[in-house]
């Protein structure tokens, strides 16, 4: 290092570079072939991580719109469709003319329904043809074919409709990671699972008499997703959030003791409230946007 420059003699004026180029000619003309490939006819192998055009698995996608929200360029949108198999659904579409191919949408997808394939020859003279709606992106077999890199873990998932609040799961858990929590206004308890401590032993699932807990493979999220905060006094029980939730994490439960007394003296229906099962929450903020009464707060999420 820091050596003085090699003294180049005048004889090496052109001969040394010519020696090197001559060696290349020998390599590419006589001993072998040139380094390039004849592109439209030969193609390079792309690594499996390559980020090209998107595909969407309709069966895995739950329509949470996380991909739309994380897109730095706003090039994705949710489209409402009717599918003969899946009914009324919402699925994302991509405008590849504006796409950065950053892959954040694939990373954030909670069910790994969205993938990026190795297809890169996307040029088209018509800009409108670069807009790929959900139907053009659909490929229900692609996600099963590739090796998944995302870490999966089995976690017990609660179906609150079946749960009676019997506390058996909390008693069985060897890691003591299930705590029973009183649901305010309902008078029932629900198990709250401390996911970081859970070892997926499955004992709580076995012990549950109502089969409300099931073991399910969930993908670990790489992102710190916002969690909804519920404000009971604003809730009117309108069910908008439960309908909007793509992950079925919101249940509506009756609140006994809030029945209005009707004119004929009978009691009417009790007021309902939303109950969140946060283990299932994907942090999409749809409930927050659906709620018209400021009963759900999500800091940092824009309406």
């Amino acid at each position, binding site marked *: *290092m820091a050596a003085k420059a*090699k003294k180049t003699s005048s004889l090496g*004026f052109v001969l040394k*570079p010519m020696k090197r180029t001559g060696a290349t000619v020998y390599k590419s003309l006589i001993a072998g072939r040139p*380094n390039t490939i004849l592109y439209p006819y030969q193609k390079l192998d792309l690594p499996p991580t390559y*980020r090209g055009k998107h595909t969407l698995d309709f069966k895995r996608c739950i329509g949470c719109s996380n991909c739309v929200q994380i897109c730095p360029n706003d090039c994705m949108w949710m489209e409402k469709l009717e599918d003969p198999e899946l009914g009324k659904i919402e699925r994302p579409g991509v405008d590849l003319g504006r796409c950065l191919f950053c892959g*954040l949408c694939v*990373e954030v997808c909670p069910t790994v329904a969205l993938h990026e394939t190795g297809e890169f020859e996307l040029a088209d003279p018509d800009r409108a043809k670069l807009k790929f709606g959900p139907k053009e992106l659909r490929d229900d077999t692609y996600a099963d074919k590739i090796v998944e*890199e995302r870490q999966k873990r089995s976690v017990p998932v609660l179906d609150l409709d079946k749960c009676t609040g019997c506390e058996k799961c909390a008693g069985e858990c060897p890691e003591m990671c299930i705590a029973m929590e009183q649901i305010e206004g309902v008078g029932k308890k629900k198990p709250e699972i401390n996911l970081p401590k859970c070892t997926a032993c499955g004992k709580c699932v076995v012990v549950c008499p109502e089969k409300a807990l099931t073991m399910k493979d969930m993908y670990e999220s790489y*992102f710190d997703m916002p969690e909804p905060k519920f404000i009971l006094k604003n809730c009117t029980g309108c069910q908008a959030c439960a309908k909007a939730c793509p992950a079925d994490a919101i249940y509506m439960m009756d609140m006994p003791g809030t029945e209005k007394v009707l004119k004929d003296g009978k009691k009417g229906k009790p007021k309902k409230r939303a109950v969140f099962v946060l283990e299932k929450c994907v942090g999409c903020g749809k409930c927050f946007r659906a709620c018209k009464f400021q009963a759900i707060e999500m800091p940092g999420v824009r309406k």
Partner: protein
Amino acid sequence: MAEMWINMGPQHPMTHGLWNLRIKVDGETIVDAEPVVGYLHRGIEKLAEARTYTQVIPITDRLCYGASLAWSHLYCTAAEDLMGVEVPERAEYLRVAALEMQRIASHLMWLAAYAADLGAMIGFIYSMRDREVFIDLLQALTGSRITYNYPRIGGVAHDAPPDFARDSLRACDYMEKKLKEYEDLYEGSKVFMLRNEGVGILSKEDAMNLGITGPSLRGSGVKCDVRKDMPYSVYPEMDFEAASHPDGDCYSRYRVRMDEMYQSCKIIRQAVTKMPAGKWRVVAPRNGPVGTGIGRVEDPRGEGMMYIVGDGTDRPYRLKIRSPIFVSVSAAPKLLVGYKVADVVAIMGGLDMCIGETDR
């Protein structure tokens, strides 16, 4: 002939981007120079204020086409400094390996442009051919060829592919063989030495005072390297030297970059062999705290710095980017005056211009 102003740029083969160098020539001798930048101003600092911390990463990739990984890594270090996130060790090793590959790829691209500037198309083609080796490696690692979007706040996006270590070691061997070839091709040629020795001389004091950083500063005999001075990531555990050369002319800047490629090969070898197993990513908080964070790395072009101000929301309040070339190009009059028109390409090419980061 009377003195006249010549606009070299915005569309000119010398500019490697979109900027304008106005030079005043007396015959073929330059008597005055004035760089004009701003043609590629995209307002990345303002864009970042409207995006969440994660969404900024692919935007910072667009700062420089030659070394996009270095810039997204810089952003991530600054954001980690702001949030206080600890990065897993495997992620740091992966980052260092990827960064050094990026450095080689960037220097090769510089070499390609420099050779083409001096008239040797052969250097352009050979450098681009060998850059492909590292681009392929980075493609397998990150999934993309130019804008990698690989570092994340709190780690990296993917784990290494299965044969990554083997391929990297092979690529390093290949590269060191090829670097010898380049030395014959350039230093072995008298014409190259004629064009480089004693051209664009910049003294040590001037270089430091004008804010020139990176290989151009080390080419003036100052042995400073952010990787050594304020070590980040796992650079303290790597055994390498900060290349420097005392002459301060174009040849010495060239020599520094060539030596840096050797050093980078050395670092890649160490990084892929020492790489521990484990997690490569931790979950970073969504909302940054109130406060400031600063990242300072050795970009392939010089000292890259970012200054983030957080206000507690999920978006940065202010992101300031220090571009090494923005400062270096302001020293153009000092470098150019007194030399010939043909030396403009050697001197400005020797600074490794990248307009994406200059104009932001």
